[in-house]
């Protein structure tokens, strides 16, 4: 057994241990902390699997933002969770365990018995990279070869935010999401919230820009920007915008809207829906991505902030 394999087993064991902790621990807050740690460490596995784009996404969205989202809910529901006394009966537990073991074993078997002949689309992707002028294969797949998926995913983000906003009580309709955070303006938190976002914005834009040729892209960059925005909000330096704001809504639809317009343009002037003319492919993709990073950062931030809770006029 080589030393690399030992390292991989250690990494898998740490991640699985966190998974077990997340599932088994009684208190929800502890489970959430475990899940954040799990999400951040899974990024290491993705790096080991040589999928750095996914590692960035998991670290930023899966672990960081997703974990904080769960954490906020856990902090609010802390008292409610304590009241819940119902626990499933022994029969349920045993049968659930049996089912889970069965499925895990079946998946493990599938992993162990993967066929020798490997089908891969990597050479095809590389062969067509000239059509876009970008050299990061994952960005090529996301923005050109399977652009439809990415556009619809933007629509899913939009639908999610519409769904979250529609849960606002009548009194707060169109108001500010989340509580107004207060912090000492001369305190440590406010200091960090003034110092870190400029760095974070540079890093976010760098990750976005490098996505054309190296791992990175609009999602990962957008997630970093969103986290910096939320940091400033948590430190009380700024407030969430009222959701009735027209400018906000324009930013939210800018990404998918531009994507759709370019797609329809492809239908009118090019070969098919979302077909870019090869000469214009790179500027078009770049334009869509710039609109998208704004949309993604705003949407992710607002999804984390939750439903409107305070009315706008106050």
């Amino acid at each position: 057994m080589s030393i690399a394999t030992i390292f991989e087993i250690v990494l898998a064991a740490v991640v699985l241990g966190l998974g077990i902790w997340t599932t088994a621990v009684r208190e929800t807050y502890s489970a959430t902390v475990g899940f954040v740690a799990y999400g951040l460490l899974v990024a290491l596995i993705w790096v080991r699997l040589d999928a750095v784009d996914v590692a960035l996404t998991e670290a930023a969205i899966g672990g960081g933002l997703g974990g904080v989202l769960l954490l906020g809910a856990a902090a609010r529901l802390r008292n409610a969770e304590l009241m819940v006394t119902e626990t499933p009966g022994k029969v349920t537990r045993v049968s659930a365990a049996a089912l889970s073991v069965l499925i895990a074993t079946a998946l493990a078997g599938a992993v162990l018995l993967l066929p020798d002949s490997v089908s891969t689309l990597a050479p095809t992707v590389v062969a067509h990279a000239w059509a876009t002028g970008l050299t990061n294969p994952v960005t090529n797949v996301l923005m050109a070869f399977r652009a439809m998926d990415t556009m619809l995913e933007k629509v899913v983000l939009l639908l999610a935010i519409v769904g979250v906003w529609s849960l606002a009580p009548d009194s707060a309709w169109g108001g500010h999401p989340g509580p107004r955070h207060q912090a000492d303006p001369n305190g440590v938190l406010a200091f960090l919230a003034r110092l870190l976002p400029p760095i974070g914005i540079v890093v976010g834009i760098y990750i976005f820009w490098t996505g054309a040729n190296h791992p990175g892209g609009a999602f990962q960059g957008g997630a970093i920007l969103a986290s910096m925005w939320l940091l400033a909000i948590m430190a009380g330096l700024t407030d969430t915008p009222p959701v009735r704001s027209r400018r906000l809504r324009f930013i939210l639809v800018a990404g998918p809207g531009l994507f759709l317009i370019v797609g329809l343009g492809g239908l009118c002037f090019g070969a098919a829906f979302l077909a870019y003319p090869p000469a214009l492919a790179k500027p078009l993709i770049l334009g869509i991505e710039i609109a998208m990073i704004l949309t993604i950062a705003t949407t992710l931030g607002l999804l984390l902030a939750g439903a409107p809770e305070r009315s706008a006029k106050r």
Partner: protein
Amino acid sequence: MSLACDIITIAAVSAGAFFFLAGTVGLLRFPDTLTRLHALTKADNLGLGLVVLGLLPQAGSLRDGLKLVSIWLLGLLAGATVSQLIARTARQGEAAK
């Protein structure tokens, strides 16, 4: 040249690993929150700094080296501020008891 670089790497990364060991021993052995916080944010940040120092000779370009250093600076900033915030929370929690 390459040998010298490798020696620097091995020495610095070993020292970094030692400080991670020290930090973990501190986490496991220290009795209360504040002392454990001390072990976590000081020893581990020094460990990270030494690992970064060790990897600098292996960095491909100046840009990679700058990125490595800036990661450590970010770590220092986070350690300094977050430890203060956690310590304050711990004191408030004790006062509330």
